[in-house]
């Protein structure tokens, strides 16, 4: 399916905050209460419409586990948007935000749009982090903030789409260089004369004879 732009996202945050569930809710509209540990990186994709333009979101869901940290860091680069997720029922996941943010800022391009997400808003009775605290943190660090529930799907669409909208605006303002793929933005096939119409032809892909290995 053709699209005007492709935006690359990453989802980061402590293990167990619901990153994979947010992705699943957004791409498949379903909730999986028991989710295996994400190892390394997972992917999801969905098409959305902003300003009458088809935009494809390619979402990289990373492992929260410390053991995989050095690997997940390398995915920050080349992302146009990031969802930084904590769990409103676990204070320590909120406390680690500074570290996540530092990591993200250090390894990503400076224009990356970061959305702060307090997940599991359906578990209000077990809440350990107040909404105001999230808002304050976001304000302080220049992030967009939202509380979501991957379980009830509350605000999940909005989280992904608002991030996309912000990226889109930055493109309109000329902040993002859309021709540099390292920014996590790709112009869709119909907009890019050189990239269209490639067929999956082994001859073209591999080349025949000549320098190999």
């Amino acid at each position, binding site marked *: 399916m053709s699209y005007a732009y492709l935006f690359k996202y990453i989802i980061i945050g402590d293990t167990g905050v619901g990153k994979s569930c947010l992705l699943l809710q957004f791409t498949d509209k379903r909730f999986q209460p028991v989710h295996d540990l994400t190892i390394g990186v997972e992917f999801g994709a969905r098409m959305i419409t902003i300003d009458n333009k088809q935009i494809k979101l390619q979402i990289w869901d990373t492992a929260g586990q410390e053991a995989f940290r050095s690997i997940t860091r390398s995915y920050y680069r080349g992302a146009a948007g990031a969802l930084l997720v904590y769990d409103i029922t676990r204070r320590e996941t909120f406390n680690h935000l500074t570290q996540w943010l530092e990591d993200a800022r250090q390894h990503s391009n400076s224009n990356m749009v970061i959305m702060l997400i307090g997940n599991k808003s359906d578990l209000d009775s077990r809440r350990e982090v107040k909404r105001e605290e999230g808002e304050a943190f976001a304000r302080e660090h220049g992030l967009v903030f939202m509380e979501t529930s991957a379980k009830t799907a509350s605000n999940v669409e909005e989280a992904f789409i608002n991030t996309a909208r912000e990226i889109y605006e930055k493109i309109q303002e000329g902040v993002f260089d859309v021709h540099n793929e390292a920014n996590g933005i790709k112009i869709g096939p119909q907009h890019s004369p050189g990239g269209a119409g490639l067929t999956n032809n*082994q001859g073209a*892909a591999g080349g025949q004879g000549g320098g190999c290995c």
Partner: protein
Amino acid sequence: MLNRFKTALYNVVGSFDQGEGGAMGGLGPGMTSGLSTNSVGGRALTGSSKDKGLRFPYTRPHLLQLGSEDEIQVTADHAIRPIICPRDISRLPWNSGYAETINAGKSKKNEDQAVVHVGLLTRPLRLEQEAPSSSSSSRSSSTLQDGRGSSTGTGAGGIKIEEGSAEPPPPESPQLPPLVHVSLPYYIFGVFDGHAGWGAAVAAANQLHHLVHEKLCDVIDILIPDPLEEKLQSPIWVPEREVTMESAVTGALENAFWQMDHMIADDRLRFQLTGGCTACVALFIRGKLFLANAGDSRAILSFGGIPVPMSFDFTPESENQRVRKLTPSKDPNRLRIDHLTNDIMEGDGAMHPELLGGEFTHLDFVRRPQRRDLGKRVLYRDHYMTGWAYKTLTPDDLKYPLVCGEGKRSRVLATIGVTRGFGDHDLKAQCTSIPIKPFLTPEPEVRVLDVEAAELTDGDVLVLATDGLWDITSNDRAVSMVGKSLSHFLPDHHDKHKYRYTSAAQDLVMGSRGKLKERNWRTSDDKHATIDDITVFVVPLLPYQEEHRAWKARQGRPPKGKEAFMKETVQASGNGLVPPVVPPRDRDGLECSPIEKNSTQDGPTTWQPPSMEAFDLHTQEDHFKSEMDTAQKQRGEEPARGPDTA
């Protein structure tokens, strides 16, 4: 430039059945399995040879379970080079680790491929009832085994009674001992490093394991010997040479490798199938690990924290002499290459100077001679020499050397950097019409490790990887990295413990891929990282050992007369320990071969290897897909592990 990667439209994917290459029968005698013998049908032409369709569509290894084109595209992000691992690691035997990453832009697609295959060889045998107290009684009593090697008997586990009950044998053969199906599981892990296109590597990843299966079936009488047969034969007929199980498996692997290459030679005439690939394949069977390698991928063991090489890197440099030996002759006229098979037709010994096309010299010089050296004495060696000698330089010696360069930069005919593997049938030396294939061979070197006898811990692993890993990471470093990765996962973290081999595989890939600094990929100690594709397996050895010992104990009276085997079996099962009686698995909803279905009726006497639960047990008829589907149904059930019986 790295970022130039453009999205290709994978518009042909889906038009072929992934498992199509699977059924290519030719079952050995005595085999009973569901494997289709319709070998032609399996490789039927899907179009006329004129419009040459793809033999196989491009894909990533099935074990990754990448479902969509989007995902396959994401794996091919040359700028990020994501490290990809299987979505559901329980699909790999023993929670083995796998990780891969794509090159930094040198080819559009990841030309590495990989395969994991779990198979089962089954042979129906009429096992003799030696004494009333042994197998027949254990069948009816169905519970106790007296610990003698011969009595763990037909009731237990891998040996399955067709009737599955204590009823008398079938009426038509009242005199014969009961027919039992002896099943032998095996496991294949393979990596294939493609070059000059991905066709050969994808073909090998889709087909080689089926060929191995077929070749193993051919020698099933050696892998699962019939005790009756031996008894009949042994007093009269003495074989000239003893054929061991090891040599039969080795032969099966060698045969499969050659046939794989021939299939590619054939298929390329009718399909688009380009490029070549190396092959490095680990086969676990009968308590041993067989490592067959053709090319410059490498397998090592991390054994007690020490690297033990399981393969030899075949490169132009290391195969310098073999390659040069092919060419020298004074009489080139009567030789030709069969262009279909690329076999060198014998005519004048095995020496074929015409292969050099008059443009290359087979002589090796200490340093490349130059025109001004003409008439001088230079150090050289001929194909029959390992050492050096002097000769007077002639104009002929100024031709380009057949093998040149050192290490990773070594080349045959100034073109190709590998000397063994599959494919490359149409490859020509750069800027010439000289075919390269005659210098290449699919012949693997096979090494064997006795896993059963080894003293193992759960830190002992097989690391199987393409050269992308080894170009940067030494054997020593790989072993220490694996040790460090595994130590992050403590045994008491049960839920996370299973990720440790995957984590190790990822860390290895990460170590060689490094990180992008400005425009270069650099390792953590700021050296050049590889820009090549990287593919890594980390396979623990202990689970296979445990599984094999349990399998052997279940065989009870071994279906073989070999004394050594008897002795081992007695050791394994004669210490009073017998495998626990575990209820048969719930196989509802699973496709099973009739044999397997019957076996479930054996009641509590049937005991399947527990760690097989997560895998497919009917792979003879598989496509990889159906294998995966089966595994999916089993997903989430962490296999219970039986105690080590030895």
